[in-house]
Structures are given as structure tokens and as C-alpha cells.
């Protein structure tokens, strides 16, 4: 009177196998679920009972114990409805025990239909790993297929799920996902003028650097930031899977399979929404949703200090650790940040036409908030002044596609170094080939401009990227000189 079905739980974004075990004993009729279930899982009892009845099966009139093993791993959500129902049917002998040789995931409706649940991709990954068929709601089938699982059954009802699990449905050909045709939100060619910022975007894209732009309202900071994903190279298959895993874990639909994601959280977002969190088991936040893509922080000066503090780890380590009651997990966060801010609270400081209305104490507060360690994470900082009229009328610039080609070849040069230039450590920077003129200029800049040690490395990293864009193995004086231009003394 025992049966089990494999399902999956997410720890961070990693799939963990969960065995759904069902035991039926002769005792007073009841159904209990053990194994650290949350409220949604406890409610599964009622959904499973109704769904079984609606599908023409009956819940045995005996004691049914459901255990979600390993028992100490916290589980949550409605995704275990389907595996529980399958295991109950097998344990009760209503269907053959072979029904358990699947990875199953899905929520049950009271009428026996199967609804999609969070973690479809994880189910696919686990099924591939265990070489089992994967049974999920038809809406989740694409996600599971993305994981590379060959035998994915997208089912609409519990009855269909039983047939699929028993191998009664014909093996479907592997779902081929339609090719994507994604145009970037903003093409570089649409942006007139702002040569400095556009070039900085190109350098940022080529080296994976965080970029900070400041300027008055209406100067085009947001548009520039939105152009960044368009000049990043296509995601590799592995990267696309990484991204999909995070998005799947957060319960959001699946992102583009070829283009890097772009996230733009508002400055009123909570810390949990930003870096990940939640009440029980942590879910990924915006920094992880932007994994392999771009996180745009508009109005950086308006972000509260605790939020900026929380961003420090992911921006530095490319991952974020979130500790919650349920579990402590690591989420990936290899992202590029684009920060945009006004030069002062009213936004018009230094503008040639509009006077700034900020008081000295306001300015002081504003700068102090932005001068902290978070600013140090931005390798490139450029001003974005209001555009001159002639530039608005000028010819369109280069297309994103042309820039993307340069970025891609610059990135290829970085492969041998083991990481993008933005993540080069000091010892790796030291062993790069610095032409003597480059060294001389660096030393001069260091002496004259009172650059900090961290700032020194920042300039060297950017110079390395500028050299890569020029296709040069040696970092020469012009590369360092250009890199110095992105140092952007903060106001």
C-alpha cells in the first residue's frame, strides 16, 4: 500500500529532487501531509480529493499519509498536487505502480485540470538528469523543454497525466521552440548626439562594466540605458538556461532565449524585491532577474540607503546570498548595472538654461548618499548633458547591430583572461602588457588627480577594455587616456 512519485523543489535556483511518498493504512479515513509543507501544500488535500473525484477516481476510505522527502527541506506552493494525486492512485492500486516513474509537477484544479506551477524548468532539468519523463502542465512544457529534457509531456488533466506517466501517450516529438525575432527596445541609431555616453555604453558592454550616468531630466539617460541590452551579444545556450532558471524560480514567464534581460526596478522597491527574499523560501529578486543582462537603476539618488547597501554584494560578487527562515540560498547575479541620476535633487545643477533651486544642505545630503561605496562599483561614470540643438537634427548614428559586432569581438579577446575585464582582479591587471606611455600617463593621472587605489584599478580595467575594443593585446597610452575620460569626477 505504498507508492512514490518524483517531484522537484527549488533551493535558490537549483532543482532538488523531492520524493512524494504515499502510504495507505487501514485506519480512520483521513489524509495528512508531512515533510515541512507550507499552507498551500496542506490545502493540497482538498484539491487532490476534489480533483480525484472529478476525474472518476475515488480517494480510498482509509488513512492516507503523504510524506514529502527529504523531510527537512522546506517546500512550498501548489506544485505538488499532481505528484501527490499520482502517488495516491498508485498506492491505492487504482493505477499501475509504473505511474511513479516520472518527474511530475503541477497544480490541480477541482475539476481535474492541471494548472502550471512555479519550477517547470527545474522539473525539466531534474527529469533530464534522472533520465525520466517529465509530466507538467501544458503551459509549462516549453519551459521544461528548454532544460534539454527529451520526453516532456504537457498535460491538460489528471487523467491525461496518468496516461502520460504510464507511457500510454505516444512519445511526442521534442517541442521545437519557435525562433525569436527580438528587436532591441531602443536602437543606438535612434539616439542623436550623446557621443560620450554612447561610447561609454559600448565600452561598458564590451567589458561588462557598471555604468553611471548623470545629467538633467530629459537629457536621454533612460533611453541610453535601454539601448544597452541591444548592443550586448546574444546569450549562449548555457547563459539562456541560467537566465531561464532564475526566471522560472521566480514564477515569471520565461524570458527571451537569445537576448539579455533588462530590468528596471523602481526606487521604492523593497530590499527583498531587489536582491531576493520572501517570507519562507527565498525567491530571486531584481538583481537575479537581470542575471546575464542589464539592471537599470533610474534615479539612483532617490534609492534609500539600505537598498543601495543591499546592492553592494551582488554588484561586486556577481551573486547574492539571501538568508531567510526557510533556507539560505545563493542566487546568481552576473549583471551589468546602469545607474542614472540627476546631478542634484532638482536636476538642473550646471544646466546652461535652467537655474538650480537646491539649497546647499540639500545638495550636501544628495551627494553624501551617492558618494558611498555604491558609487565605487561603477567603473564608468559619464555626464549626460542636455543635448545641443544641432545634434538633434544631425544624421542618425550607428545601429546597435554594428556596435554589437565590435562588442562581441572585444569580448572574445577576454575569454582567455578567464573573466570579463570588469571582474579582473588586481593581480590579473598587473600582468597585462602596459606600454610605457600608458604607464607614464597612469602615474601622472594618479599623482595629479589624487585617484584612490580602487579608482586606479578601475581606470586600468576600463583601459584594458578600450584596448580590447581596438583589438590590441597591449594597453597603450591612447587607451589609458580614453579610460581617464570615463572617470567622471562626481559633480
Amino acid at each position, binding site marked *: 500500500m505504498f507508492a512514490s512519485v518524483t517531484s522537484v523543489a527549488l533551493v535558490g535556483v537549483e532543482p532538488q529532487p523531492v520524493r512524494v511518498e504515499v502510504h495507505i493504512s487501514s485506519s480512520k479515513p483521513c489524509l495528512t501531509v508531512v515533510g515541512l509543507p507550507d499552507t498551500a501544500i496542506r490545502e493540497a488535500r482538498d484539491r487532490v480529493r476534489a480533483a480525484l473525484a472529478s476525474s472518476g477516481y475515488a480517494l480510498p476510505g482509509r488513512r492516507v499519509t503523504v510524506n514529502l522527502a527529504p523531510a527537512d527541506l522546506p517546500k512550498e506552493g501548489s506544485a505538488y498536487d499532481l505528484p501527490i494525486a499520482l502517488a495516491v492512485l498508485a498506492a491505492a492500486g487504482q493505477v499501475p505502480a509504473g505511474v511513479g516513474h516520472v518527474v511530475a509537477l503541477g497544480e490541480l484544479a477541482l475539476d481535474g485540470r492541471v494548472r502550471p506551477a512555479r519550477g517547470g524548468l527545474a522539473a525539466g532539468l531534474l527529469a533530464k538528469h534522472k533520465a525520466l519523463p517529465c509530466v507538467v502542465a501544458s503551459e509549462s512544457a516549453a519551459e521544461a523543454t528548454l532544460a534539454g529534457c527529451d520526453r516532456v509531456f504537457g498535460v491538460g488533466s489528471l487523467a491525461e497525466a496518468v496516461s502520460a506517466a504510464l507511457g500510454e501517450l505516444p512519445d511526442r516529438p521534442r517541442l521545437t521552440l519557435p525562433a525569436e525575432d527580438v528587436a532591441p527596445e531602443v536602437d543606438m541609431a535612434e539616439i542623436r548626439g550623446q*557621443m560620450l555616453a554612447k561610447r561609454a555604453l559600448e565600452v561598458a558592454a564590451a567589458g561588462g562594466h557598471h555604468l553611471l550616468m548623470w545629467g538633467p531630466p530629459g537629457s536621454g539617460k533612460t533611453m541610453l540605458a535601454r539601448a544597452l541590452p541591444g548592443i550586448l551579444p546574444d546569450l549562449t545556450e548555457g547563459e539562456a538556461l541560467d537566465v531561464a532558471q532564475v526566471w522560472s524560480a521566480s514564477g515569471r514567464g520565461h524570458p527571451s532565449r537569445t537576448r539579455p534581460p533588462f530590468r528596471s526596478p523602481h526606487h521604492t522597491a523593497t530590499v527583498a524585491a531587489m536582491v531576493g527574499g520572501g517570507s519562507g523560501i527565498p525567491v530571486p529578486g531584481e538583481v537575479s532577474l537581470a542575471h546575464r543582462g542589464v539592471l537599470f537603476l533610474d534615479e539612483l539618488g532617490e534609492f534609500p540607503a539600505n537598498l543601495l547597501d543591499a546592492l553592494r554584494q551582488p554588484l561586486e560578487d556577481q551573486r547574492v546570498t539571501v538568508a531567510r527562515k526557510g533556507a539560505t540560498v545563493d542566487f546568481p547575479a552576473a549583471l551589468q548595472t546602469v545607474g542614472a541620476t540627476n546631478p542634484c535633487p532638482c536636476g538642473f545643477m550646471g544646466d546652461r538654461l535652467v537655474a538650480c533651486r537646491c539649497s546647499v544642505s540639500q545638495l550636501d545630503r544628495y551627494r553624501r548618499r551617492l558618494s558611498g561605496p555604491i558609487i565605487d562599483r561603477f567603473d564608468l561614470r559619464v*555626464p549626460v548633458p542636455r543635448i545641443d540643438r544641432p*545634434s538633434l537634427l544631425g544624421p542618425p548614428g550607428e545601429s546597435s547591430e554594428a556596435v554589437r559586432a565590435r562588442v562581441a569581438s572585444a569580448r572574445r579577446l577576454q575569454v582567455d583572461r578567464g573573466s570579463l575585464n570588469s571582474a579582473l582582479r588586481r593581480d590579473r591587471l598587473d600582468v597585462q602588457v602596459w606600454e610605457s606611455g600608458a604607464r607614464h600617463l597612469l602615474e601622472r593621472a594618479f599623482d595629479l588627480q589624487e585617484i584612490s587605489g580602487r579608482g586606479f584599478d578601475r581606470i586600468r580595467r576600463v583601459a584594458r577594455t578600450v584596448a580590447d575594443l581596438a583589438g590590441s593585446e597591449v594597453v597603450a597610452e*591612447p587607451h589609458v587616456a580614453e579610460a581617464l575620460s570615463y572617470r567622471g569626477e562626481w559633480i
Partner: protein
Amino acid sequence: MNDERLRLAFVGMHPTRRRLLLEKHGSARSVLGRIEQGAEKVPDHARRAAVVPAGDRREELTSAGIQVVFREDLPDHLASLPDAPDVLFVRGRLPFEQGVAVVGTRKATTYGLRLAEQFGHALAVAGWPVVSGLAKGVDGAAHRGAVAAGGVTVAVLGCGPDRWYPAMHRRLGESILEANGAVVSEYPPGTPPSGWRFPPRNRIISGLSAVSVVVEARRDGGALITAKSAIEHGREVLAVPGDVDRPTSEGCNLLIRDGAIPVLGAEDLVAAISLVLGPPATVAARTCSDLIALIEPIGRTVDWIVEQTRRPVGDVLADLARLETAGAIHWTNGLVVPGSRVGG
């Protein structure tokens, strides 16, 4: 007449002694005669040097690219001084306008070096020749700043004009000549840098200048000699204040206590000198860098500069960074503005 003055200059005696002898005996010819007779004691090599015909000397000088300028042909502000040199050896082109001396200790701190370079730069951008002694430390930094701005600068040496002392400043010296500046000395070619030859040359530095700026000086530093002769010449002396307990600032602080004008930065310096020399000439007319001319006077966006120059934005940015490192421009709210940020 001038032949004898040239031959006398090649004797290479102490400038003060030569001046006193000329005053006492009336002409170079009679002084040379006394040397030949042994009435004036000079070392043997100097005696031999005195008898080489002036024609041979002129040939030597011409082939070495060195001009001879007699006192009456010197710029008035130098020639009119009671202790003006009788003969000056000049490489390059000696500017006729009055310059600004930027002098200081050889063992300068980074503070002093940074300021000297900024000063040299700001003065050159304003169009005034920068005069100094090509020594290590402050002198070299001042020359460097001026050269970086493409300005005219004059190095007054304590050895022959054909030698670079210190040797490490050979390239700097050559870049001064390339930038239409001058390297001058009252000592004949071949003269080694002996310690006693340096204090007299300081009067030439101050003599070529309307104003002498002492950036950093010790209590007994050579820069104070320049300041002293500037005062004797009736010229202004400016000094950069420093920590009262720092030896490299003691000389400057003493000068300020005794009435020198304190300098509060490059902008302040240019403003103070404008009172003496009149407002600076427009940069566009002076500088070698078209870029600076383009940015003058209000500051420009990068877009504008790129459009005007029709060059790749990366190259323009690199040039701007070089100019910024040299203190010729800085950024303010996204605009490129002439002048350096620190101290104007």
C-alpha cells in the same frame, strides 16, 4: 670690441668678478690683456680659452646652434639691470616679452610638484613665458607644465648651454626647444655644472621675469636667492604658503611674512600677474592645441567637439583626458571647460 667680449665670456669666470673687472678696467680688451699678462689670476685652461680667436668661437657656436646675445641686444627688462650679464648664450628663441619665474626646491614634495606643474601650465595657457632653472623638483615641473600646454618656457642653466644638467632632464630640455622655448646660459659651452655657478644664474631667472613665484623653498634654498634678486630688481615676489612646520615650506612662509604675496592657486596666480602684465592673451592665439581653442571660452559638450573636429569620439576623449591631466581643461556638469579644476 664684441670679439673681446666674446673671448672674455669664454674665460668663464664668476659673473660678479667679471662685472667688477669690466667696471674697473673699462673694457673687455683691457681685462683680457691683464689676464694674458698674469695680472688677473685665472686657471690655466681659462687662460688658454681666452686666447682662442673670436672667429673660431663663432664657428663653434654656429655649428652647435648656439646664438650669442650681447647685453645691448637682450630684452630691456634684463639688459637694464645693473648686474645684467654681458653676454648670454642662447639656444632656441629667447622671448622678448617679460615672463614669470616659477622656482623652488629640488627636493619638492608632491604638493609642490603638482602646484608647479599647474602653475607652469596656467601661465603658458595665459600666454606668458615661464622662466625657471631646469633643476630637479619644482623647476622641472614648471617647465613640464608649460610645455604640456604648448607654451613658451625659458630654462636658465648653471652650466654651458650645450649640457643638460641634471642629465635626466635632457628630454625635458629638448621638448622646451621643440615648443619654441629657449635654453640660455651666461657660461660658455662646455662649462661643467659647478656649485658656485648656480647662485649667479638666479639673477637672470628673476631678471627675465616680471614676477617670481616661489613654490616651495627651504629656509636657505637657492630659490630665495632668486626672490632676493627679484626684490633688488624691483620685481614682485609671490610665494605659495605651506605648513609652518614643513621644512620645504619654511622659505616660502618667511617670504610671505616679509611681504611676498601669497599665491592661493593657479587661477589666483593668473589673476595676480594680470595686475602686473595685463590680462592674458586669448588662449586660441597662443596654444598649439586646436582643441583648447575650440573649447574656449565657455565650455562645450563632447558632442559639439566631436562634430567640429569630425574625429572618432574615442580619440577626442583621449585628447581631452590628456589635456585634463595637464590641467588645461576640466569637466563641469558634462561640459568641457578650460582651466584646471584644482585651484582654478
